[in-house]
């Protein structure tokens, strides 16, 4: 087995679809131009950009002029959060998010906290769910922004968006609503009108598009302060150059993901549920992190293997050509336990021993059978070595 042959870390990044590469190719060769007016080369790129915007807009039930391309999900989140807060800080300086949000949201919250804003971090329950009742209780007259991560990036929990929308509508004053849809996009239907969001971020490389492309939905009439100043070739939210090849790939990835979304989502659920059942059937002392069934995203399974440590497991799996992620401190850049798992009440050992598998349309049952068989061997071997495992 060579590196990454069985790739089960699709929430980190996913393999570009062959059709995506093909769609990008002309824009890396003969159609390398920038957007512009009146001359044929510039108009050709304008037309292409509009077409791509239309494709992304359709996938979210948005209008094409509500879609702004970015250099990825993080940039989209920054443009939205910083843009909303700088444009509206005269109306209030209180932000609400949750303890289990994606780092983009939490680091932005921390940044504004350091600059005079107040932030309320809503707690999550044992399954990672952040209730609308908690949101309701946290709202004050100064609240200006609520942000959420629709699908949790660690344990796949789907947050109650419809209930959030109702609470915000009943708040009595305008509270801007930003959603990170990085892990939700292509894994469940998303309709920006139903969601009631003002801004929403998505990323191309989580849905078999290229790395370095994303999009931000901004509801018509929503004012954002400009974050990046420079030459405005497309609009003020996306100044500077346009990487048209990446956007061509992004648009193609969206077309593929949304061609038959319900069937694709069902297939992902089948695969992830098959994986979980196999693990639970084959390996003792395993616990699922996050909710069971359709309360979690279609592609995510997060389990803790008791008595052993995650970095050792991912290393051994890696040597067998299997790529997965772990919440172990030893595998993290900051050497600390995973904050999402800790926030839902898991202890250090449960976090250190966690493994995250995320499947994709390219995952097969054979891949999963092989991965589970190897995982069973590895678990047995590491438990033999562990002083915490008492069944020696």
């Amino acid at each position, binding site marked *: 087995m060579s590196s990454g042959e069985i790739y089960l870390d699709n929430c980190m990044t996913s393999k570009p679809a062959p059709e995506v590469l093909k769609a990008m190719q002309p824009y890396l060769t003969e159609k390398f131009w920038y957007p512009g007016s009146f001359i044929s080369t510039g108009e050709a790129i304008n037309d292409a950009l509009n077409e791509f915007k239309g494709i992304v807009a359709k996938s979210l039930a948005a209008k094409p002029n509500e879609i702004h391309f970015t250099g990825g999900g993080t940039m989209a989140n920054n443009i939205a959060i910083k843009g909303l807060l700088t444009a509206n800080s005269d109306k209030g300086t209180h932000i609400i998010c949750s303890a289990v949000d994606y780092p983009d949201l939490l680091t932005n919250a921390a940044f504004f906290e350091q600059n005079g804003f107040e932030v309320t971090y809503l707690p999550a329950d044992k399954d990672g769910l952040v209730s609308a009742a908690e949101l309701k209780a946290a709202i004050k007259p100064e609240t200006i922004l609520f942000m959420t991560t629709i699908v949790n990036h660690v344990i796949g929990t789907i947050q109650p968006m419809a209930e959030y929308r109702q609470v915000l509508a009943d708040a009595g004053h305008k509270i801007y609503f930003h959603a990170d849809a990085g892990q939700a996009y292509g894994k469940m239907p998303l309709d920006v009108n139903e969601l009631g969001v003002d801004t929403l971020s998505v990323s191309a490389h989580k849905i078999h598009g290229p790395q370095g492309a994303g999009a931000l939905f901004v509801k018509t009439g929503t004012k954002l302060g400009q974050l990046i100043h420079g030459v405005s070739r497309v609009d003020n939210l996306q100044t500077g150059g346009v990487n048209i090849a990446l956007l061509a790939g992004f648009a193609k990835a969206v077309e593929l993901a949304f061609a038959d979304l319900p069937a694709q989502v069902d297939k992902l659920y089948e695969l992830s549920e098959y994986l979980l059942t196999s693990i639970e059937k084959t390996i003792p002392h395993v616990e699922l992190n996050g909710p069971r069934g359709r309360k979690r995203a279609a592609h995510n399974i997060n389990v803790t293997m008791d*008595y*052993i*440590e995650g*970095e*050792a497991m991912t*290393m*051994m799996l890696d*040597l067998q050509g299997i790529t997965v992620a772990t919440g*172990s*401190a*030893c*595998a993290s850049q*900051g*050497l*600390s*336990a995973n904050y999402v798992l800790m926030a839902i009440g898991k*202890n*250090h*050992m449960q976090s*250190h021993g966690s493994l995250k598998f995320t499947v994709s349309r390219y995952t097969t049952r054979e891949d999963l059978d092989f991965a589970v068989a190897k995982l069973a061997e590895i678990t047995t071997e590491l438990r*033999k*070595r*562990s*002083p*915490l495992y008492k069944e*020696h």
Partner: protein
Amino acid sequence: MQYSQKVLDHFMHPHNVGKMDNPDATATEGSPACGDQVTVYLKVNEDSKVIEDVSFLSYGCASNIATASIITDLAKGKTLDEAKQITWKDAMEALDGLPPVKVHCSVLAADTLQTAISNYEIAKGLKEVPLFSKDTIVDELKKIIYPQVGEDIVTLKMVKYVGFTDGEVIIDLNIAEFDTWRDNVVEEIREHLEKYPDIKDLKINLP
């Protein structure tokens, strides 16, 4: 791949792994909360004081397991006095190095070996239970690795002052506010020192 081939070999096929029946001494260091725990078992020849057998169990990452494997190799067949000289640096060298961020994982196995030897000597009346002093604190601080460079915080002169009076410990650290590893180092100091009943209060001052 940041690990050397030697680390991978010892991680995949560790030597001296397993619980020992009737050991002459054992020691367990670390805790699941810290992310790693090692137990070392010793069999010592009472006359020659040679470590005739040594084994370990490890709850930890690849670096932790590989270090426990090599350090038990290094200790086997040595006299207690020789084995007392083995440090985490010897283990690291024998493994052809470790990534800086992983060095701290190697310290635990070396520590556990030393504690097992000490436990043996105390049990056999070869030495007294060591008195707790400022030196104990400094020795513990020498086991705390600054992850960015893989060297301990005493050698790196990050410890500006250590005070110990009437159970109260004061440590002045020189780690900048924006340092990524600041919380990590502080947390590790607490983990290392809070196990000592002689310490009633621990104050860590930061710039």
